[in-house]
């Protein structure tokens, strides 16, 4: 009991998000190290309990289902109250969250309620004897800090994409849990949620990112970037700060020091010179391709593969070649 791990499994639109499975996987290896169980708590509207097998399949022994119409969208105050109560009554050694918009909002609220710190946005979490140890990239990914959590519960948020999901199937036995407060009683009300484009992959979850910079010359030329992303089939579109500040792309697409920090399998930088602030957000990508007309652009210093030349000539050719390669594959 004292070595059990609680996971707050993020759900949206009636399904669990990929980051939820990653966090369960991280919790599974941590619990195995400590000799405990993984309990995943999931919040949602009617029928959310149907996600339990998915959480069990990646390592949850128990799935705690908090079903309420008020949880169809994220309800920070009621979720925080319920998770804090569950951690206390369940006597958990640690609670893990995704370092997503929701998890980054939720974990510190619970930390303050339980009067402990939070290790945020970690890329690894493990047991070292009785300590819980995490690795956290800081100073725009230029330094990796190893941190120790000495309090119980240890609260940790795990960076999306940092942990791979294995197969460690457990029972995923469903238990129903009541909300610790009426979701309608929250002071902060979500009055609307607008999701841009239904099937659009999020930057944190996409295995491939095609990103554009000023070298594209105009907002409408981003269609070339979108076509390349579509050719990959599993790609999201990113942008530099110069481009989002100019309103060519929404701010949510910005990759860099003050935007999103991403680490896809493949990052294609198109017309991006490679300002240090941009590189801060993408340097941890596994493979980087750069296409730029200036052979001395700093982006080529971090790119595994570079093509020098006119993006308007190269992009259509690359899009066609990626389509052909995937058709064969």
């Amino acid at each position, binding site marked *: 009991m004292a070595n059990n791990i609680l996971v707050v499994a993020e759900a949206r639109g009636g399904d669990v998000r990929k980051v939820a499975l990653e966090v369960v996987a991280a919790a599974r290896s941590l619990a195995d190290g400590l000799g405990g169980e993984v309990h995943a708590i999931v919040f949602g509207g009617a029928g959310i309990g149907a996600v339990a097998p998915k959480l069990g399949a990646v390592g949850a022994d128990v799935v705690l289902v908090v079903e309420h119409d008020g949880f169809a969208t994220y309800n920070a105050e009621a979720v925080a109250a319920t998770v804090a109560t569950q951690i206390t009554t369940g006597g958990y050694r640690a609670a893990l969250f995704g370092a*997503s918009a929701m998890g980054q909002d939720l974990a510190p609220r619970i930390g303050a309620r339980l009067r402990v710190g939070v290790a945020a946005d970690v890329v690894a979490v493990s047991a070292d004897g009785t300590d819980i140890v995490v690795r956290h990239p800081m100073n725009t990914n*230029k330094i990796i800090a190893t941190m120790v959590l000495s309090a119980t519960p240890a609260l940790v948020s795990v960076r999306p994409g940092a942990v791979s999901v294995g197969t460690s199937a457990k029972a995923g036995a469903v238990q129903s849990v009541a909300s610790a407060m009426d979701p309608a009683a929250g002071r*902060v009300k979500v009055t609307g949620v607008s999701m841009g484009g239904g099937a659009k992959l999020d930057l944190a979850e996409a295995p491939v990112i095609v990103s554009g910079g000023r070298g594209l010359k105009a907002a409408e030329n981003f269609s070339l970037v979108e076509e390349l992303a579509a050719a990959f089939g599993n790609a999201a579109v990113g942008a530099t700060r110069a481009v989002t500040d100019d309103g060519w792309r929404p701010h949510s697409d910005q990759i860099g020091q003050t935007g999103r920090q991403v680490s896809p399998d493949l990052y294609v930088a198109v017309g991006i010179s490679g300002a240090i602030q941009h590189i801060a957000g993408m340097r941890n990508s596994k493979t980087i391709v750069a296409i730029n007309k200036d052979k001395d652009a700093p982006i080529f210093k971090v790119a595994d593969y570079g093509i020098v030349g006119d993006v308007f000539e190269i992009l259509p050719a690359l899009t066609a070649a990626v389509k052909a390669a995937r058709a064969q594959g």
Partner: protein
Amino acid sequence: MKIAVCIKRVADMGARFQIGADGTSVSDAGIKYDMSDFDEWAVEAALQLNEKHGGGEVTVISLGPDAAQETIRKALAMGADKGVHLKADRIPFDGFAIAEALAAELKDGAYDLILFGRIAVDSAAGVTGAMVAELLGLPCVTAVSKLDVNGAMGTAERQVEGGVETLSFPLPALCTIDQGLVTQARYPSLKGIMAAKKKPLESKPAQLGAISVSVRKMELPPERSAGRIVGEGAAAVPELIRLLQTEAKVL
């Protein structure tokens, strides 16, 4: 409105960092410091809100060593009215210890709105703001990319993965500020810099809370090995495809 903005002095992220001799800190050598980007936007947002609604007062609060006063002076030069320095020789890595000190300072301030940056760009945790809100029992919205106040109610937008949430909340409240709310924080004018020297700046010891998250080790990530130029123009595309398939194995 009476607005408080909590700001942090951070290293310039353009630097080539080195690990300090103790192995658990970032070396100071050759490092320049400035206000964290998100905190600058929070100061700018506070100034704009009061300009829009007329009157009010902006107090900036910073926890850290004596040099944090330089960062407070910058916010005063931008137009904030007064500063509070919570003195701590080292800023802990446990956001809860910091949140306790900030909450102790903020609790009797009768602020209508308390703003933070979404994260400090150095420690990159983004936990302190929401913790302070909980400690003070205030409504809280994190990662705000749009903010307005109408009487005793505020409205905000926050970016979530793939979308935007719109929220409403009663004041007093606490918000953490993300990119998108302001395009550019104002630069202090010469007049502002002169005026800032005469604005009140109070310094007192920080009442830090207990620390439960600490750094055991810091290290530099492995350097990326230098890549290669595959070729020039569209003619290089077939070779790139071959490398992505056979060498990088990502296609």
